[in-house]
């Protein structure tokens, strides 16, 4: 059985027929080929699949594609605008906030949610906000600095 789903991803409207059991993350990766959103676990624990759903961070493995019907999704591929990196993307680069890069898209999307409601978080608030996202490479030290970099840059502009 297939069900029609219609949603906006990175500003573009998609209408497609999907299996009702298809997860949003599978829809993004397999149907739209937006493979920047990753799958790291089966239990919504790792955060590698985090996207923004109507502006709020969501682990896209916790939602069926059909549940996202009518909603607006932003993925890592939609963060840079007009060729300019988002301050978070820039921050992760400047502060060496990534190594293997696998958790990075999810980290950036989670941090984007944080900065949208707390534009100048302190270290503790950043660590609390990111505690749903695993990184096995960096020990989080430089990820915290990356988010601070972005916050400073966004505050300044």
């Amino acid at each position, binding site marked *: 059985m297939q069900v029609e789903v219609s949603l906006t991803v990175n500003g573009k409207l998609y209408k497609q027929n999907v*299996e009702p*059991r298809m997860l949003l993350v599978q829809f993004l*990766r397999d149907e739209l*080929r*937006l*493979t*920047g*959103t*990753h*799958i*790291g*676990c*089966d*239990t919504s*624990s*790792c955060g*590698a699949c985090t996207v923004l759903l109507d502006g709020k961070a969501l682990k896209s493995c916790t939602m069926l594609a059909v549940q996202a019907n009518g909603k607006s999704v932003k*993925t*890592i*591929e939609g*963060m*840079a605008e007009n060729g300019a*990196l988002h301050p978070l*993307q820039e921050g*992760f*680069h*400047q502060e*060496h906030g*990534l*190594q*293997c*890069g*696998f*958790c*990075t*898209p999810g980290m*950036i999307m989670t941090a984007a949610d944080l900065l949208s409601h707390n534009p100048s978080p302190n*270290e*503790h608030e*950043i*660590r*609390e906000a*990111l*505690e*749903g*996202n*695993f*990184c*096995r*490479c*960096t*020990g*989080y*030290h*430089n*990820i*915290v600095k990356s988010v601070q970099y972005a916050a400073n840059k966004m505050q300044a502009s």
Partner: protein
Amino acid sequence: MTLIGTSVKRVEDKRFITGKGRYTDDIVLPQMTFAYFVRSPYAHANIKSVDISSASEMDGVVKIYTGKDIAESGINGVPCGWQVDFKNGDTMKEPPHPLLVADKVRHAGDAVAVVIAETYAQAKDAAESVMVDYEVLPAVVNAKAATQEGAPLVHEDAPNNLCFDWELGNPKAEVDAAIEGSHHVTTLDFINQRVIPNAIEPRSAIGHFEGHNDRYTLYTTSQNPHLTRLLMCAFVLGIPEHKVRVVSPDVGGGFGSKIFHYIEEALVTWASKQIGRPIKWTAERSESFVTDAHGRDHVTKAEMGFDKDGKITALRVKTYANLGAYLSTFAPAVPTWLHGTLLQGLYTTPLIHIDLEAVFTHTTAVDAYRGAGRPEATYLLERLLDTAALEMGTDPAELRLKNFIQPFDGVTQEGYQTQVALQYDSGNYHEVLHKALKMVGYEDFRAEQKAARENGKLLGIGFSTYIEACGIAPSAVVGSLGARAGLYESAQVRVQPTGKVSVFTGAHSHGQGHETTFAQVVADKFGIPLEDVEIVHGDSESVAFGMGTYGSRSLAVGGSAIVKSIEKVLEKGAKIAAHKLECSAEDLEYAGGKWTVKGTDKSISFGDISLTAYVPHDYPTGVEPGLDFSSFYDPTNFTYPFGAHIAIVEVDKDTGKVTLKRFIAVDDVGNVINPMIVDGQIHGGVAQGIGQALFEGTIYDESGQLLNASYMDYVMPRADDLPNFEVDRTVTPCPHNPLGVKGAGEAGCIGATPAVVNAVMDALTPYGIHDIEMPVTSQKVWNVINGN
């Protein structure tokens, strides 16, 4: 312009921060099918029957293979790459590890069948309908218990579940006598618990056979694509190596677990030919938990003797090392040549003996995990040192300084010959500890701790001063120790006609930043812009050969191979330049991207010579066109990074919660090419080391079930569990490789674990206990505080 030693931002970042990374599971091939494995829910069981009849009828199913099919196909199991012999000279027990088992399962997660279908969901649906009739048998999971009389056998031809026994060091009788005669002996009986590497990217493999030219391509999440190709072609499938391409694209972390050749890689490669279509397999996380090679898992008794002045007299170790149900690729080397050989530590201990039994159990295979043997050795030594200081009423820092080997540079002073085979290359151990003590403000801390105790607060400080053996490894040496591979590295430096440079390295980057660090070396040596250099890795089609990345070897071994090729380019370039400048090559010097006639302003640029080499009209006789050189570098010794780590913790009396207040790491990894990247490697290693100390560890029940096989149950450090780290370094160059580098990938993970546990023990001094088994959870600490 100098790039070496500067924190150049990483060139690989761009694709990762924009979602353009290309990991194995991101790859889609035309006509691709999907594989899902049927795995045993039991740790030990006879397979009475496997019924695929209803599953075969299900929607989308293309093919199902069982263990019987594999047995009848004549395919071998995955091989072990390292042989260790019994003390009596007998060869280790090396039972087969078939791609799918036919008769008996030996750990929960053992693969029994595989379903290949049009979609992933269809494969998974059908796998649930494969009916396997198991006769469940008793299992054993603890290494020491497995050696006892009457324990269930994992393999019938391995009595007492012994894979091999092994010893190293001074004659045991001498060590025994020295321990007996010591003024003080500190003894620890402990388990270095099993942990799971848990790279966030699950393993994945795509097999693709193309009939028009009889070629196979395997895309795989490997730290080690060339070795995977060699093992798979020569030992498992018996297919011609030159007809097989192995690509390891972007890989989302490895930490050891992606070094090894796994059954799934061989199976999708083989089956792709059978069905004539590409096959993708990607592990689910719960599958990763029971099939990725695990790390550590030692049961150890360690005794260290001291004389009345606090000098170490002897070290005696007995260890049972758990290898799991099958021998993973490098498993036998980890508890032996990567563990026993590090028991000298930084100390002048005159007598050392280790006795080891390597044991099969009904658990997932154990192999190298970040540090691989060296964290186990360091944990053993550093826990003994802090415990001894506590018992003898001396200061743990003083006790270390008193026992350290004196500084030696390995150039004017000889390397340090240990009692356990290795010869250290260079070191200055006092300096790292002095620097760390200064950073932590040691004297002030002790005063603060005293005041805190008077106010009922539990503050503790823990030390760890470690050494590791990296830059793996001199091929002849490891060959004599049982390695079935050489451990050199290859590099090709291809200067293009326009002066741009492509470098093909056998090392593999899965987070380490080789595309930046290696390019810094090349750009610096040639005096050209960084953006004129590209580093290519991870594809057997473009890279001639390689031994991959693990053991902190990439720069020390792979980087040295690159330097060799650079030197060949410059030597040939000088011949061409001499012709153009009408002088002899000896009259030229190379700097700033050009050859200059010494003492003149006559020069010719790198770009001009590159073009001349490919357009050889006005060209020296007897010199071949082109500017493209390959090299293999085989190191003459291991490298020996070292460092001092200090942890400060606070223990909450009411809850037992351990809070890591500060973590100081002073590491000496030799010369540093990119400080930013090295610091990042230390951070990540420290986090994993802290993970083992406080959070991580497998929980097997008696029947062999891994009870915490998910991210909801297996606890790893999250952002709010860790502090910012305070890192610094000293620089003692490696005397035996051209870059003077030692390696930084594992240092943090080796040093951190005992520092944290020592800090907790220091905090709990008022309770008079000397040890808590890792992970040191709130519950365990609370029980100690409450006298349970």
